[in-house]
């Protein structure tokens, strides 16, 4: 095995191997566990750096193992899209690991938690690197299985209930995806991801079947991407510990679904063929509906994490919308939002976790004056919330700008109204929080305050949201710099739409 072909395996192994070892560590070996976690995350980041450099310079990374006869291999492959998603998950895994170590200090079953945590990241990276649909499916299901223990981690009746609902949705979604995949293989004879899709050459008699398969595949993926009406599990799953919510909403599960939709539209069907089938229009409509519906529901949630969860439902659909508009500029907007939504939403969940851990604040109505008690946390929260609304020059603005521009370019002006309406709704559920936090008087006593000396909270809880908030600013301000998410999304799109 050469270096180039083993690089992708190594990237997977840097979270898989530590995870496996951690399962067998006794509860009290905190030092070894932390070292393993951190070492894995840092090494993975370095390897991903090497891979980015290589892909940018035209290097091909591919690892292939035969699985079934008929050209069905297990394929790991690094192209533009995988790099985008792998980088996002690797960077955010590192910060979330730090956060989780701080968050779970002294609690029970930590070996189990970090074991599954690492498995979850392995599955996400696998989803990103999958080079064909069957490999994608394998990691996608592994993701379902490895997140279930994280959702029910607390072991309460509520967590258990959320876990059950999560499984019901995701396993059913996985079954749809499986049937769609097998059927597609039967029709098209190949499951490889290629830039123009694999079905363009098929004759017209297969078009009905291909439309039905498209619906099956997208329905299966929509469960994880939380498209309305398949979003029901997501708000309930917020009973999980904060680092899990952060990972679920920003990196792993929801993103895997959205990423899958990007793959199916762009690399399985090919965006032009999908448009000619007439399936992108309905997809855009569903995404638009989800954007508005999620925001409306978020407006009426008093529980902070639930409000954020509905906000995720809404925001993730920007990615789908960007793809479904069909046009190079909108595609850039959708792809770049994959990254931008991740860093903004993870910041918000980190902050929500800090409020809950430090002050016992879970509800929006308890957040009066919280900015004075925890200024740094709330500063990060504010940046991310403004970014979500789309205030320039933050990351969210870039996404919305390109989505709007792309919609006009593709002649779909209605999208502008959706974007404007959604931004208005985003502002109406985020600005009152910001106002209350900074300008209202704090209460005499917080629900359950813990003291951390001179600091507002433990540094392991504070550093991660600050880092991701900085990334939110940087992704917006430095959008024109090389290797920014925006430039990378352009790089991908030129391959998809270019000559």
């Amino acid at each position: 095995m050469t270096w180039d072909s083993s690089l992708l395996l190594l990237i997977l192994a840097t979270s898989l191997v530590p995870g496996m070892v951690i399962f067998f560590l006794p509860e009290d070996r905190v030092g070894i566990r932390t070292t393993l976690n951190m070492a894995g995350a840092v090494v993975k980041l370095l390897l991903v750096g090497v891979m980015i450099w290589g892909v940018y310079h035209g290097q091909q990374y591919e690892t292939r193992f035969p699985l079934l006869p008929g050209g069905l291999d297990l394929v790991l492959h690094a192209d533009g899209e995988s790099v985008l998603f792998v980088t996002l998950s690797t960077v955010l895994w590192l910060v979330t690991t730090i956060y989780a170590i701080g968050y779970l200090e002294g609690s029970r079953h930590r070996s189990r938690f970090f074991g599954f945590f690492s498995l979850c990241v392995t599955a996400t990276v696998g989803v990103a690197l999958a080079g064909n649909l069957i490999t994608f499916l394998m990691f996608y299901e592994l993701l379902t299985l490895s997140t279930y223990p994280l959702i029910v981690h607390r072991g309460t009746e509520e967590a258990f209930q959320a876990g059950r609902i999560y499984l019901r949705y995701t396993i059913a979604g996985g079954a749809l995806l499986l049937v769609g995949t097998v059927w597609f293989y039967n029709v098209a004879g190949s499951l490889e991801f290629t830039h123009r899709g694999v079905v363009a050459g098929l004759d017209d008699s297969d078009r009905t079947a291909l439309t039905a398969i498209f619906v099956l595949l997208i329905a299966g993926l929509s469960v994880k991407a939380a498209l309305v009406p398949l979003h029901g599990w997501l708000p309930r799953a917020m009973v999980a510990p904060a680092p899990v919510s952060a990972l679920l909403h920003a990196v792993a599960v929801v993103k895997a679904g959205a990423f899958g939709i990007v793959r199916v539209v762009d690399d399985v069907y090919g965006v032009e063929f999908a448009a000619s089938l007439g399936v992108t229009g309905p997809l855009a409509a569903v995404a638009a509906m989800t954007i508005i519906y999620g925001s409306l529901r978020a407006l009426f949630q008093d529980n902070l994490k639930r409000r954020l969860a509905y906000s995720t439902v809404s925001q993730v659909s920007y990615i789908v919308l960007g793809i479904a508009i069909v046009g190079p500029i909108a595609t850039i907007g959708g792809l770049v939002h994959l990254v931008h939504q991740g860093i903004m939403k993870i910041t918000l969940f980190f902050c929500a976790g800090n409020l809950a851990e430090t002050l016992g604040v879970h509800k929006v109505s308890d957040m009066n004056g919280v900015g004075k008690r925890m200024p740094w946390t709330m500063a990060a929260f504010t940046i991310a919330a403004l970014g979500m609304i789309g205030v320039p020059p933050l990351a969210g603005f870039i996404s919305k700008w390109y989505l709007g521009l792309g919609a006009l370019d593709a002649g779909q002006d209605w999208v502008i109204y959706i974007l404007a309406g959604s931004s208005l709704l985003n502002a109406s559920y985020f600005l009152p929080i910001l106002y209350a936090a900074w300008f209202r008087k704090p209460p005499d006593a917080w629900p359950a305050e813990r003291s951390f000396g001179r600091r507002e909270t433990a540094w392991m809880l504070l550093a991660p949201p600050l880092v991701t908030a900085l990334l939110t600013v940087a992704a917006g301000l430095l959008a024109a710099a090389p290797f920014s998410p925006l430039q990378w999304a352009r790089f991908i799109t030129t391959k998809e739409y270019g000559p």
Partner: protein
Amino acid sequence: MLDIPWGVMAILLPLAGALACFLWPRHAVPLGLVTAPGIVACVAGLGWQVTEHGAQRYAIGGWGAPLGIELYADGLSLLMLMVTALVGLGISVYCTGYFERKTSAVFWPLWLFLWAALNALFLSADIFNLYVTLELLGLAAVALVALAGDADALTAAMRYLLVSLLGSLCYLLGVALLYHGYGSLDIAILAQRVEPSPPVWAATGLMSAGLLLKTALFPLHFWLPPAHARSPAPVSALLSALVVKASFYILLRLWLDIFPLNNAAPGQLLGLLGAGAVLWGGVQALRQTRLKLLIAYSTVAQLGYMFLAFPLGTTIAWKGALYLLMSHALAKAAMFMAAGNIMRFGGHDRIADLDRVAQRLPLTLTAFALAGVSSMGLPPSGGFIGKWLLLDAALNSGQWWWALTLVLGGLLAAAYVFKVVGYAFTQAKVVYETRAVPARMEWTALLLALAAVLLGLFTPWPLALLDIGFPFGGGPAG
């Protein structure tokens, strides 16, 4: 090396081991533990011969068919022998921790005898030999079910005995009809001579019915749950993992080689019964309150999957069914072993009270969960590959309703597996008396479950194995 008849050795060695264990009951455990790896080595030797030199035929005592007894090993036989060897090795290790010395002395001779019968069955090349081995297998299995010795076990064993005898009797009648009509018992010779005619149809019906009863295909499954759930864990494991597969194997052989199948109705019927088994077994498993009964009903459901290949009849479908057979054998053995560990640890197998047990046996629970993953057919596991192949075959032939059955079965399996696994994450408060579980019992279950999962990643070799000797037709050997 090449001249050694490894296939014959694979039958004689367990027989000799059984005899030795019977004669020196005080040394049954060490004798058995020497024999088991020996059998594995014989199967490995045979495997090497078959992969290197193609299908093997042995004439016992120098007399070939039609006068003497012949043994025949192609890829299909080899696959069954290997699964048996792997699971058998696991059971042999597991039972040393499970049984006390006194029970061991009874268990080992019976178990090795059963192993010999299984190996002989998979190597038999004529339908009468198959009958003899099937009968021996049934008797050994009934004796093992009765091993616990209490009233429940004896009732279950008695019922099992009657079913087993009835099944073999039907089969034997069919054999007599075929012998009377065509003057031969050899499968290869019959394959050339048999033509559709009323006696052949009668023989087909009788033999199939007998074998289906023994394979516990819905609605003939009524005897399986009590027999499999009441037995000691190692016995449950070998019954569910291996014994029911033997009669399935015979049915498959006859179906592929002898039965005249110029119309599709019988295959559709078997598929329908299989679908019934998948759904009924799944629903029943979900309703159980006892872990071992849940696992037993899961066997009923999983056996149904294998029959979905009959209406499809393509090589891909057969391979899918056999892949499910392999992964089910490994996974189900692991599940029953895990259940045995849990019963040993907490003294009961009530699912609702499992939370206090599950958290303190993490390896056992992991074994159960991994085996569950394979049963659900989620990737990466052997169950997934088997399901993929069957789905592919079903959609390819346009019979989408079998695909629907596969998917529904998977959802039901997920429901009953997570019903158990979920208890690992509830908060255990009550502390009560427990009995230690030897590490080897936990690890055997885990390794078998892991093997079922890894079967989903290392696919090319087992799939290629199934092409040796062209058991599904299409090759020079027909």
